[in-house]
C-alpha cells in the first residue's frame, strides 16, 4: 500500500517535469521571433546578410535606430502615435461615462439603448470601413488627425465592461454623496471613478496598447506622411527598404519593446482583467 502511494507520487512528479519541459520548448518556439528581432536590430546590415547567421551580434551597432530617426520620419510617426494614444484616453472617459449611466441611472429606453450598444460589437470593421470613409470625407476630415482618431474613439465592449463593474457600486454610497450636495458629474468624477480603479487600470492598458498599435484607420485616412503612425511608417519601411532587414528589425523592435515593457509591468492587471470581466 505504501509503495503504491509513493509510486503514484513519483509518477506525478515525472508528469510535472514533462509538462514543464514541453512548455519550455513551446515557450522558446514562441519567443524565437522576439529574440531574433531584437538581436538582429543591433547587427550591421552586412552581418545580417551573411549566409551563416550569427546569433549574438558580432559588431554591436545602434546605426539602424539612428537611421530611422535621421533619414526616415520616425520622430514624426512617434509623435502621431502618441497623439492617438492620448485621444483614445478621451474615448475611454466617454466609455466610462456611458457605462456608469447604464449601470446606475434609470431612464427611458435604457435596456433598448444598451442592446443597441451591444449590437455594434457584432459589426465587422470591414463593413463599416467604406461608409465611414465616405462619412469622414463628407465631413472634410480625410487626411486629418481628427479623421484618424474619431472612428475608433468609443467601443461597445469597453462600455459593457464598465457597466458590469460599476453596477456593483452600492446605491447608498451615491445617495450619500448626493445628500451632501454633490452634483451628478462630481459624484462621477470624485466617487465613481476612484472606486472603479481596477477596471480603469485594465481598460487603460488595453487602450494604450490599441492606440499604440493602430494601423488600419491611419492607413486609410492619412495621405500625408506627416500623419503616419509608427505602424503605417513601418509598413512603408518594409516596402521601401525590402532587403534591408537590420533596419526593418530596428523599426519593429522600436514598436514592440515599449509594449512588452508596459505589459510586463502591468501584466497582473491585464490577466486578472479577464476574471473581472467574468469570462468564465
Amino acid at each position, binding site marked *: 500500500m505504501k509503495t503504491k502511494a509513493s509510486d503514484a507520487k513519483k509518477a506525478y512528479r515525472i508528469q510535472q517535469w514533462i509538462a514543464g519541459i514541453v512548455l519550455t520548448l513551446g515557450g522558446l518556439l514562441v519567443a524565437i521571433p522576439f529574440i531574433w*528581432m531584437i538581436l538582429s536590430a543591433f547587427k550591421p546590415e552586412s552581418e545580417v546578410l551573411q549566409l551563416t547567421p550569427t546569433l549574438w551580434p558580432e559588431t554591436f551597432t545602434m546605426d539602424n535606430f539612428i537611421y530611422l530617426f535621421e533619414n526616415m520620419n520616425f520622430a514624426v510617426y512617434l509623435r502621431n502615435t502618441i497623439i492617438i494614444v492620448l485621444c483614445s484616453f478621451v474615448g475611454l472617459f466617454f466609455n466610462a461615462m456611458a457605462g456608469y449611466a447604464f449601470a446606475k441611472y434609470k431612464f427611458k429606453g435604457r435596456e433598448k439603448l444598451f442592446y443597441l450598444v451591444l449590437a455594434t460589437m457584432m459589426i*465587422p470593421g470591414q*463593413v463599416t470601413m467604406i*461608409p465611414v470613409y465616405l462619412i469622414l470625407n463628407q465631413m472634410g476630415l480625410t487626411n486629418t488627425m481628427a479623421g484618424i482618431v474619431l472612428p475608433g474613439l468609443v467601443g461597445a465592449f469597453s462600455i459593457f465592461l464598465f457597466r458590469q463593474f460599476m453596477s456593483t457600486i452600492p446605491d447608498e454610497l451615491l445617495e450619500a454623496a448626493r445628500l451632501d450636495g454633490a452634483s451628478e458629474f462630481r459624484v462621477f468624477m470624485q466617487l465613481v471613478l476612484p472606486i472603479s480603479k481596477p477596471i480603469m487600470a485594465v481598460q487603460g492598458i488595453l487602450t494604450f496598447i490599441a492606440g499604440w498599435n493602430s494601423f488600419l484607420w491611419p492607413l486609410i485616412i492619412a495621405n500625408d506622411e506627416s500623419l503616419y503612425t509608427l*505602424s503605417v511608417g513601418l509598413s512603408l519601411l518594409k516596402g521601401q527598404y525590402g532587403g534591408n532587414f537590420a533596419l526593418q528589425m530596428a523599426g519593429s523592435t522600436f514598436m514592440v519593446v515599449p509594449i512588452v515593457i508596459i505589459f510586463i509591468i502591468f501584466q497582473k492587471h491585464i490577466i486578472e482583467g479577464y476574471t473581472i470581466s467574468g469570462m468564465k
Partner: protein
Amino acid sequence: MKSYSKTTPYLFIGPALALLALFSLFPIVLALVISFTDIDLAGLADYSNISFIGIENYINIFQDPIFLKSIGNTIFYVVFGVPLVIACSLGIALLINFGTARIFKAFRLVFYMPSITNVVAVAVVWTYLYNPQFGLFNYLLGLVGIPAIPWLQDPTIAKGSLIALAVWRAIGVNMIIFLAALQGIPKTYYEAAQLDGANNWKQLTKITIPLLRYAIFFVSITTMIGWVQFFEEPFVMTNGGPLDSTTSVALFIYRNGFQLSNFGYAAAGSFVLFVTIIIITMIQFRLQKKDTDI
C-alpha cells in the same frame, strides 16, 4: 430617492452613443445603400455621378474570379486555423493549469506576449524569418539537412505560413480564457474521480473537456469570426500574392475600396462578409443549443 434630473443620464451616455451611432450603426445602413450604386472617385467628387444599378454589384462580385478565390482562401484559413488555435491554446492552458511549480505562472506571460504586439511589426519580423535566403527558418532546416522551403513563394505553403503567424498571435488571449474556465472547475470532481481510479486521460476527457464546453464554444466563435476578417497578415506579408493565393475577403474589400476606389463594389463585398458572419454565428448557436438539450 430619485434626485437627479431626467436629462442627466442622457448627458452621460450622449457622447459615446453619438459616436457609436455615427461610426457603427449609420454606416451599416449606408453600406447597404451604396452597395446598390456604382459610386467611385467621380461619384465621391460629385454625387450626381452616382446611379443606382440594383443588384449588379452582387451579380458581378460572384463572377469575379479574385473574389471567388478570396472566399476559397478564407475557407482554407477557417478550416485549418480554428482547430489549430483551439488545440494549441487549450493544450497550453491544460499544461499550465496542471503545473504546480511557480515557473508555470511565468509561462502565461511568455505565451500571452505575441497577442499584444503590433501586427505590422510581427509581420515584418516573420517575413524576415521566412526569407528564403537569409531567413532563420530555412537556415535551421538546412542545419538538419532539410532543403529550403519557399515559405511565402509557393501558393499553398504561403497560406500555411500566414496561418502559423496568426496562430502564434492568437494563442495568448484564448489560453487565458481557457485558464479562467479551468480554474472554475471544482477540485472535488477530480478527487472523486481519483478515488474511483480514473486515470489522467479519463479525467481529461470525462470531466475537463465537457465542463469547458462553453469556453470552447466562445473561443471557436470569436476565432472563426477573427479568421473570416483576416486582413493585416496577408496585407503586410504577401499583399495577397503569390497569384492571389493568400488574398482574404477582407483584403479584397480593402483593395477594391481604397486602391481601386470602387466603393459600391467593395461595399457589396463587405455585405457578403457581414451576412456570412451572421450565418456562422447563428449556426453555431443552433448547434450549441442542440448540444445542451441532450
